[in-house]
């Protein structure tokens, strides 16, 4: 009998994972080497070069202040990665322990946590993020916090559900019988068994967070000028849609391709790690 191929091999056999993985690699490379790759300073204003069409000098044209669009998009990749990682990190740090506690202990703690989650779910995702930004002030750091907190309900529900089914397993009873503390059972025995869905959710939450941050920046409540965050690049672009459409097209393509890459990779990862999570 041939051995089952490793998870990585299984994942990389899938075409969406290959495409998505390539996009993610490209994003990481752009973010890491932006300073080397960017032909111009992304913040340098040069009014003599304003609104130049894409050319061999400025591959993606220049904006209304004469800044090189290609360099700005490259630097924007850093912000995008940062937004995704920090927002998802915040959601995970809060959502995973709360979900584990809720699912493991049940009873009143579970009831209270789930009612609280019900209340948070009464707000559409972006409205909750807007409300939090309104409370703590509009800037990129706060937008990341807002997006992270708005995603917490989804994390709590997923982890709680997984823990509820995991605690019925014999290995949990065995650990308890051997005198393991609740803390040890929860975080050493139960949590690792829910990790595959945590990884999948993190991959799928990443593009949602990036999209929400770009939307918040676009309406002026996230990254502020002169940040090259991709959503923020589109704020000013609307005024030039008649005369300089490249200002709208390229940042939009950058957001779209990145989100698409993460979605393709996330879906493939989900199908590989945990087919039972599969969406239709």
């Amino acid at each position: 009998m041939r051995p089952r191929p490793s998870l990585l091999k299984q994942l990389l056999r899938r075409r969406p994972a290959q495409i998505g993985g390539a996009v993610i690699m490209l994003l990481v490379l752009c973010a890491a080497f932006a300073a080397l790759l960017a032909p111009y300073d992304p913040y340098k204003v040069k009014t003599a070069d304003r609104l130049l069409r894409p050319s061999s000098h400025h591959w993606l044209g220049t904006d209304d202040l004469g800044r090189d669009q290609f360099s700005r998009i490259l630097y924007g990749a850093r912000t995008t990665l940062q937004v995704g990682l920090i927002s998802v990190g915040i959601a995970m740090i809060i959502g995973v322990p709360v979900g584990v506690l809720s699912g493991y202990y049940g009873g009143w703690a579970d009831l209270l946590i789930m009612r609280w989650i019900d209340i948070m779910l009464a707000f559409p995702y972006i409205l909750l993020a807007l409300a939090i930004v309104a409370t703590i002030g509009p800037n990129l750091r706060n937008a990341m916090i807002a997006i992270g907190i708005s995603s917490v309900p989804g994390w709590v529900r997923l982890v709680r559900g997984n823990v509820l089914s995991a605690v019925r397993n014999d290995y949990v009873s065995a650990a308890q019988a051997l005198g393991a503390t609740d803390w040890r059972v929860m975080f050493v025995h139960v949590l690792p068994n829910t990790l595959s869905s945590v990884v999948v959710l993190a991959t799928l939450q990443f593009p949602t967070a990036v999209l929400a941050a770009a939307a918040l920046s676009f309406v002026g409540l996230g990254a502020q000028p002169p940040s090259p965050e991709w959503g923020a690049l589109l704020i000013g672009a609307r005024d030039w849609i008649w005369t300089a459409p490249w200002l709208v097209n390229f940042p939009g393509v950058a957001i779209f391709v990145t989100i698409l890459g993460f979605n393709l990779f996330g879906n493939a990862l989900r199908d590989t790690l945990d087919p039972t999570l599969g969406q239709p």
Partner: protein
Amino acid sequence: MAVYVVRRLLFLVPVVLGVLTLVFLMRALVPGDPIEIMYLGQLPPDKATVDSIRHELGLDAPLPVQFIRYLGSALRGELGRSVRTRRLVREEISNRYKNTLLLAFASLGVAVAVGLSMGILAAIHRDTPIDTATMVLAMWGLSMPAFWFGLIMISVFSVRLRWLPVMGSDSLKHLVLPAVTLGLIASTVLARITRSSMLDVLNAQYVRTAHAKGLTHRTVILRHALKNALIPVVTILGLQMGGLLGGAFIIEIVFSWHGVGELAVQAIQQRDFPIIQGVVVVVAVTYVLINLAVDLTYSALDPRIVYK
């Protein structure tokens, strides 16, 4: 059924109270003096004006008293006054609420019409180019930023073709682009769900029986299969409505559509807290009511679902 509706309505009470508590905490938790924050970046008013605003907003009372007063007035439908325009928040919102609902429901209409048709076609023509195209479009919809798609729609249909107005909310013509933008993106998820739900149903025995009875393919699909395939679709529709309400917030900015989203974003920029709180409460309660309506729709679609 009546008992279930009453129970669900009663369940709304703690949720609405929770929403009001969260919204109250929004202002209470803001670090620093709320009046100073309101005037951030502007010439600060004199002390007498600050005191009068503080008194008018009830901020001079202890926090628990402020909370009770807030709850009492909110439950009476009083949401305070805008600190910028001095107009009643209720009036400011009601003018724009209709526009947001109109946009959200028009988008839902587009999403349902396009999404259901695409989903049914993909299921009937499984493993054909139509099916593949639907799945590719679904991934496109999941990844497309609505605000960017909106800008593309403006550049094509308003700037190049000059068919539709760029911005505003004065006529139904103004509604077309924002509704189509939001609706098309939402339709892709709906198409995916409809497809998979239809595929499940098309293999069911009662569909085979309907074919065997000699019914036309069209009747079998539309009267027998679709009705049963709609239950998961309705669930997604409820969730989509939240997305559409939220999406409308962003799209309103793109198209300068005068809805509560535009009002909220302006209020956040101007630190007009009563307006922000009002919008958040109204939209959250609307969303909760829509979800209730979705739950009740299930039994209308499938009489086997009995609520107790």
